[in-house]
């Protein structure tokens, strides 16, 4: 039971394989063109793979390759797709939109309507049942779209950036709603917002160039990223290095004294939040701090902090500190990391794709 998926599509450089347990929510993250939409289209049946096999709760979705070419029609897959835009049928009322799925799956008109009313109530817009989509706000329309997708009672729900097109003032309420309705439902959520992954997903899968570069529980991926993209999502500096007798030596020269069970020479990664990185003009000696000298590459303003990029590491400092230290591009500074603020974990040789912390 659950969902298994393996598919390749060479013309898009797509080669992905994963599983999903029943009731689980999987967040798929990745840069533009990573293959996230291709993944959803393959699952929904809007695109055929060159080779691969997918099965959902015992139903075969596709089995292509080796002379076989089974492609179940979208309507028989038990998969509902909710996109960035609500895409409500403009010629039908809200109620008819939501009743469309149950009707298509063979319910009688009155039964379909009561199913629709139930879901409209569930998403909190039952008072809009007789409206036309043109008369709804973006947030209302997306709520109706959620109701419509769920009313079809899908075995698997696909969400394609469901909050991306919404106003920042309505997105949080809808995110809360999704959190409620997705709790017991198998869901694949494509998003670029780590907050969606934190709040909605049990597991995270990061795609890059059509391949999975990182996957694991949301907690693991967001606290122990192994790719630059994952580190950026988690808001962490990712510093690749190796286990030494004294502790950890980064590829960029940073040495941190710490205990770790990994054997000497093993590939490790160190993750540290930019706010925990100290910035100084001199290499200070202090209890346990490790310092590395580097020239400032770039400075950017981020909210009430200034982010300094130097030596492949980002550090957040208060604006007053930045001014006080005279930090400007080209200036030589020292960056300090304390072992207590850092997480060090093993990664495989190939796991690290891009150097840490960069932008």
């Amino acid at each position, binding site marked *: 039971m659950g969902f298994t998926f393996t598919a390749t599509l060479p013309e898009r450089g797509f080669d992905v394989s994963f599983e999903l347990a029943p009731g689980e929510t999987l967040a798929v993250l990745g840069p533009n063109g990573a293959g996230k939409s291709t993944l959803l289209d393959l699952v*929904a*049946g*809007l695109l055929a793979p060159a080779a691969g096999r997918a099965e959902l709760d015992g139903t075969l979705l596709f089995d292509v390759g080796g002379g076989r070419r089974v492609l179940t*029609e*979208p*309507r*028989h*897959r038990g*998969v*509902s*797709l909710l*996109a960035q835009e609500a*895409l409500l*049928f*403009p*010629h*039908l009322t809200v109620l008819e939109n939501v009743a*469309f*799925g149950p009707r*298509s*799956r063979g319910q009688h008109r009155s039964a379909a309507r009561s199913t629709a009313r139930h879901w409209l109530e569930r998403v909190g817009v039952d008072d809009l049942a007789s409206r*036309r*989509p*043109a008369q*709804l706000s973006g947030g209302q329309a997306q709520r109706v779209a959620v109701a*419509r*997708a769920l009313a*079809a009672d899908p075995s698997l729900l696909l969400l394609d950036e469901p909050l991306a097109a919404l106003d920042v003032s309505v997105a949080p309420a809808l995110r809360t709603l999704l959190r409620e309705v997705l709790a017991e439902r198998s869901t694949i959520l494509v998003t670029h917002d780590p907050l969606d992954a934190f709040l909605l997903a049990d597991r995270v899968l990061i795609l890059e160039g059509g391949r999975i570069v990182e996957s694991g529980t949301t907690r693991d991926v967001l606290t122990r990223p192994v790719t630059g993209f994952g580190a950026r999502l988690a808001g962490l500096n990712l510093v690749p290095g190796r286990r030494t007798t004294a502790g950890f030596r980064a590829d960029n020269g940073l040495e941190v004294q710490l205990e770790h069970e990994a054997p000497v020479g093993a590939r490790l990664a160190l993750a540290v939040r930019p706010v925990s990185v100290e910035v100084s003009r001199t290499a200070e000696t202090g209890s346990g701090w490790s310092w590395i000298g580097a020239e400032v590459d770039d400075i950017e303003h981020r909210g009430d902090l200034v982010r300094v990029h130097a030596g492949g590491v980002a550090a957040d400092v208060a604006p007053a500190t930045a001014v006080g230290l005279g930090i400007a591009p080209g200036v030589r500074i020292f960056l300090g990391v304390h072992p207590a603020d850092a997480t060090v974990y093993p990664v495989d040789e190939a796991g690290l794709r891009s150097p840490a912390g960069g932008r």
Partner: protein
Amino acid sequence: MSGASLPRWVVAIAVVGGLFVVLPLAALALRVDWPRFVPLVTSESAQAALLLSLRTSLTAAFLCVVVGVPMALVLARTAFRGQRLVRSLVLLPLVLPPVVGGIALLYTFGRRGLLGSSLHALGVDIAFSTTAVVMSQAFVALPFLVLSLEGALRSAGTRYEAVGATLGAGRWTVLRRITLPLVLPSLVSGVVLSFARALGEFGATLTFAGSLQGTTRTLPLEVYLQRETDPDAAVALSLILVGVAIAVVGVAHRVRPLGVSAMPLIRPASERDPVR
């Protein structure tokens, strides 16, 4: 007014062009013998022509819907080798001189035509019958419906259809409940346009169906005939056709796609209002 941003001579030429279109219509209206208008348009031959025209044009428009909707769907929603060529051929009657279309029909369905000889053997003669009138009209009117519907289908896109399919709807349900309702306004204007084209058909009808009162002599043929013997009758009947044409233009451009304001994807604003 936004005309202020245009060079004056452009506006001047536009006004001359407008007069070129409107003036002849005004001249026609001025030339009408109003006291005799009603008797002129209700004469036996005029009534016969009017009724025949209505009957045949409505039938032709119906025929256009029956075959034109599937044609537009195939052209807009499928991809096959030679599709562009097929589209060009289907739209050919739009630019073909109607009299050439009439000759082509004659050599297809006429007594000694491609299919006509077999049909004759079965006892079916199409040429110079009311059926021939309907076929001539449908032949020239079909591209109007196909063109308008295919464009609407393409700009509506397939995203709603994809949503419908993932909600469990079969192909027929998607077509009936999503695709066609979405393009209904364009279908209506396509029907109206093809009806109007059928009503005005002259060349193909004359060539393929001839001019027999009550059987194949439609209103435009009657106007042409009366012009020789009773110009006043020709003018009065012409005015009726002008009236129908104005009504058609009004209807065809009043119909708007549903919920356009919320759905820019259905049709870009620039295409939406070509007349006003």
